[in-house]
């Protein structure tokens, strides 16, 4: 009998995301995949999955889940709210078993936006173009081409967990007080010197228009040069900072349009994409330009950190340790909250 993960209650956004669907940019399809790739990979590591396994990505969501047909090993990473197993607190960034009949409640995160719930063995879903990641505008992946809905019943893949030990992992801090690093270009020459200076010195606030396609910011207008704010469309990257006629920057994200006709003043480095993704409407960002060699070193450091994740997994067992882990994780989240508020 197959096991079913039953989404009893849901408020907020939730979708299935795996490593994404690369290879179709030339066909107009962006890759989707996790908004916070580090959180996605950490969650999957915690339950023993390979990186890029299908998981649930929550966006400022609260939810209640049950499993039917047998137990399932789970782990939550990223922007985590209070996590309760039959009313008892469970730590995030550690794996645990949800038994049949028990109820798991995820609260809305106090800071950040996206959390990943990894499921040992993954989900039994039909891939579209090699991936089960939801691309909402294209209507593919996820749950029949759409986001998760309250009442959804997800069939689990793989065997039920054996008696492995629960493991934990320290969350990687978001360093919310540090500027988000960008490399100038491809069209920084479409802006005045003052415009570039505005972009690199002003504080920008995430607007209400922020989703998996892109984050629009409010703040001082960035002045375009004599060429104006239209270009003949060219390709975008995840992290492209395009500036439309309003002068307010938009950072393009995982489900973005693959081409666009606004000049792009800069590109957020790959290692800092999660720091954009985890900012919520009303929170602020400053941008700092670094050179390409430094950006590459950041990507290398990030990759090394991801490769090292399994070595950092530490066994967590017993109720005392569980409660201690819950307290430690709570303190870490509080520290992040202080950073975000500063």
């Amino acid at each position, binding site marked *: 009998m197959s096991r079913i993960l039953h989404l009893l209650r849901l408020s907020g956004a939730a979708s299935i995301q795996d490593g994404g669907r690369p290879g179709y940019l030339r066909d107009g399809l962006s890759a989707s995949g996790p908004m916070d790739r580090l959180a996605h990979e950490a969650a999957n590591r915690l339950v023993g999955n390979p990186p890029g396994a299908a998981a649930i990505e929550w966006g400022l969501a609260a939810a209640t889940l049950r499993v039917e047909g047998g137990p399932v090993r789970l782990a939550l990473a990223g922007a985590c709210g209070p996590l309760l197993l039959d009313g008892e607190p469970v730590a995030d960034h550690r794996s645990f078993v949800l038994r049949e009949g028990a109820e798991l409640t995820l609260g809305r995160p106090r800071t950040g936006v996206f959390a990943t719930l990894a499921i040992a063995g993954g989900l039994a879903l039909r891939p579209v173009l090699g991936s089960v990641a939801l691309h909402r505008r294209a209507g593919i992946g996820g749950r029949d081409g759409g986001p998760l809905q309250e009442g959804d019943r997800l069939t689990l893949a793989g065997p039920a967990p054996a008696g492995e030990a629960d493991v934990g992992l320290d969350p990687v801090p978001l360093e919310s007080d540090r500027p988000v690093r960008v*490399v100038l270009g491809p*069209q920084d020459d479409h802006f005045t010197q003052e415009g570039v200076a505005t972009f690199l010195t002003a504080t920008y606030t995430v607007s209400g228009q922020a989703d998996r396609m892109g984050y629009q910011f409010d703040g001082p207008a960035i002045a375009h040069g004599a060429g104006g704010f239209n270009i003949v469309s*060219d390709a975008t990257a995840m992290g492209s900072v395009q500036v439309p006629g309003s002068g307010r920057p938009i950072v393009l994200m995982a489900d973005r349009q693959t*081409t666009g006709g606004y000049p792009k003043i800069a590109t957020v480095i790959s290692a800092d994409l999660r720091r954009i993704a985890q900012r919520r409407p009303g929170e602020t960002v400053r941008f700092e330009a670094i050179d390409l060699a430094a950006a590459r070193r950041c*990507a290398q450091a990030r990759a090394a950190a991801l490769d090292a994740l399994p070595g950092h997994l530490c066994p967590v067992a017993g109720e005392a340790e569980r409660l201690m882990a819950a307290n430690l994780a709570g303190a870490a989240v509080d520290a992040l909250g202080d950073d975000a508020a500063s």
Partner: protein
Amino acid sequence: MTHDAPRLLACGDTAFTIEFGARIDPALSARVLALDAALAARALPGIRETVPTYRSLTVHLDPLTADPEALGRAVLALAEEPLPPVAASRLWRIPVVYGGAFGIDLEAVAAHHGLDPVSVIERHAAPEYRVAMIGFLPGYAYLEGLDPRLALSRRPHPRPVTPAGTISIGGAQALVASIAAPSGWHLLGRTPVRTFVPDRDPVFLLRPGDRVRFVPTPAEDWERLSAAAEAGETVAEWSEA
């Protein structure tokens, strides 16, 4: 300038763009496609995928395998070489029902240019277009070859939704839309052809470099062609060059 020197533009640590120019020009598009083909033939380490557009080629890369600066310089050097042009690709004949509820801006476009709607249809259906890029959303085909006498800047207020299969023009560009989406372009007609169908083989109908002709089609044929498209047929005819 008759022959722009290509430029290398940084797009962060995971991509760069080789820009051949800043305008819509068949000569630029031909160079983009030639570079794209040359890169595909060479399979340089670290390249993940490439995106041709009207006037540039964006190269997405793995920064762990390749140094973006060194790879960018190598691709720029290749772009500066005379590369063999890409041979003409497939010719598609795409049925279009013009005007009325199918193309709600036909009359306005005609009025703007001082033409009658039939002349707009004739001028839109006359050229052999070339697919310069697929972009924005999956399967959206951006064409070059629009009669300059039809060129018209975009609408000041985009429509929040336009239907799948919309045939529209904006500036000097012509477009075949795949799925429903917002648009600020002028809607001349609709085709039952779907350039993106996830569970059809092929998923994506058109490729950069393909040629396209629009075939004016009576509204009476819409239901039959739509039903066929719904059943997974391409309903567009094509022939090799």
